[in-house]
């Protein structure tokens, strides 16, 4: 379970010699239950990435609490933080695969840094590669794969430490519709069969509709509505949600 309580994030920056404060997240609270596929949707610059990065503390909240499985982890650092992150996989829009490592070496990376023995981590990686349908590609390098294949490697990599939570930041935004569907189906399977809780960021309502059981809509750093995906889409309350729905009406029809 992931609980965010009154999270704010403020970036300081200096412009023309003047000190500015940029309030990117403003009192954000929500709870993601175990087994959820929780969507965070919003327009570009709304603060989605910043928010999801707060969950594994890649970004340190300015105030508020991050509670993972009942433990307040907000002030974790060093070994505790490393341990926490091993329990939370992450997948990125641009895949972020290590270009100089083979597919197999990419998938074993999280276990390698965890100090797992070579045989054990390779066995685990092969199992995951077979799950994502890329068993025959383990010796290739990321530059030799298509975007969809790269994202499947990235998903296998994120699962290598058997995390209970997976964060996906625009995991399908760089992919075409067909490939997006393949990736979404894979993520659904991971959620159902492995019981991994998924937090899925997207600016696409169609994608959110396909994979998320619950969603939160974020606008200018604030959660403007949240609830069951079906309810939110059927009875949108916030103006942004309606705007997003209008823009994407066709995609959902």
């Amino acid at each position, binding site marked *: 379970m992931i609980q965010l309580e009154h999270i704010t994030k403020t970036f300081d920056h200096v412009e023309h010699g003047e000190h500015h404060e940029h309030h990117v997240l403003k009192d954000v609270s929500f709870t993601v239950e175990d087994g959820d596929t929780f969507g965070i949707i919003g327009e570009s610059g709304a603060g989605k990435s910043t928010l999801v990065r707060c969950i*594994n503390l*890649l970004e340190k909240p300015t105030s508020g609490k991050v509670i993972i499985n009942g433990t307040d982890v907000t002030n974790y650092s060093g070994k505790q*933080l*490393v*341990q*926490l*992150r*091993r329990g*939370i*996989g*992450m997948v*990125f829009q*641009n895949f*972020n695969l*290590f*270009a*100089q*490592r*083979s597919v197999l070496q990419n998938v074993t*990376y*999280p276990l*390698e*840094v*965890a100090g797992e023995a070579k045989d054990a981590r390779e066995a685990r990686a092969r199992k995951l590669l077979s799950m994502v349908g890329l068993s025959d590609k383990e010796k290739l*390098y*990321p*530059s*030799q794969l298509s975007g969809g294949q790269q994202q499947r490697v990235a998903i296998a*990599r*994120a699962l290598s*430490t058997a995390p209970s939570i997976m*964060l996906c930041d625009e995991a399908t935004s760089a992919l075409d519709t067909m490939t997006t569907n393949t990736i979404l189906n894979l993520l659904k399977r991971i959620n159902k069969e492995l019981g991994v809780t998924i937090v899925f960021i997207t600016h696409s309502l169609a994608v959110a509709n396909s994979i998320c059981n619950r969603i939160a809509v974020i606008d200018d750093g604030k959660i403007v509505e949240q609830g069951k995906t079906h309810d939110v889409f059927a009875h949108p309350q916030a103006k942004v949600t309606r705007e997003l729905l209008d823009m994407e009406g066709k995609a959902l029809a």
Partner: protein
Amino acid sequence: MEYLQAFFNQYGTLLAQGTWATIVMTFVSTALAYVIGIPLGVLVVVTNPDGLHPHRIFNTVLGWIVNIGRSIPFIILLVALIPFTRWIVGTSLGVPGAIVPLVVSAAPFVARMVEQSLQEVNGGLIEAAQSFGSSTWQIVYKVYLKESLPSLIRGGAITFITIFGYSAMAGTVGGGGLGDIAIRYGYQRYQNDVMFATIIILIILVQIVQSVGTHWARRIDKRNR
């Protein structure tokens, strides 16, 4: 032909020894410059404002040190360092005497080259590595250094060639090697043939090092295939 025969009989050993001295001098200096320059370059990147452990003051001071080192012309450093060189290796002459100023001047250069190579690594990879629970040290050597290896090798060839050129300058203050030969025979005794021979050897060595560097970097780079 006969002329060449006679030339090699007279100067062959001298040139061979000079070439060997230059190669040794350059190799040892490059290696030592990297021993100092890699940690410096890594520290600059890690303590950068958007690095893994931002530290403004440390980063600024380190930047100054590197810049000061880079801004002193080698020929001046060479002379200015003579007392220091004597203190370290006991002499300011010959190959050992040349290595000290070469390393001192090349280390900051290497630090910048390493910094540049590491900065080329996509920030997304660093973020991914962090999200998988890597320590700073693991990110440095498993991501920064590994991902930038082709670039580091290309930089290594450039460094090697730069030190190569500097080593010839070290010849002017009795540093040994091809530069020394060129000065003593070519400049002081007007033996243009010897000078010409040293130039040919230098050109060949530079070509070899550059193409080995380029090919090696291309071979290990997994991005372009």
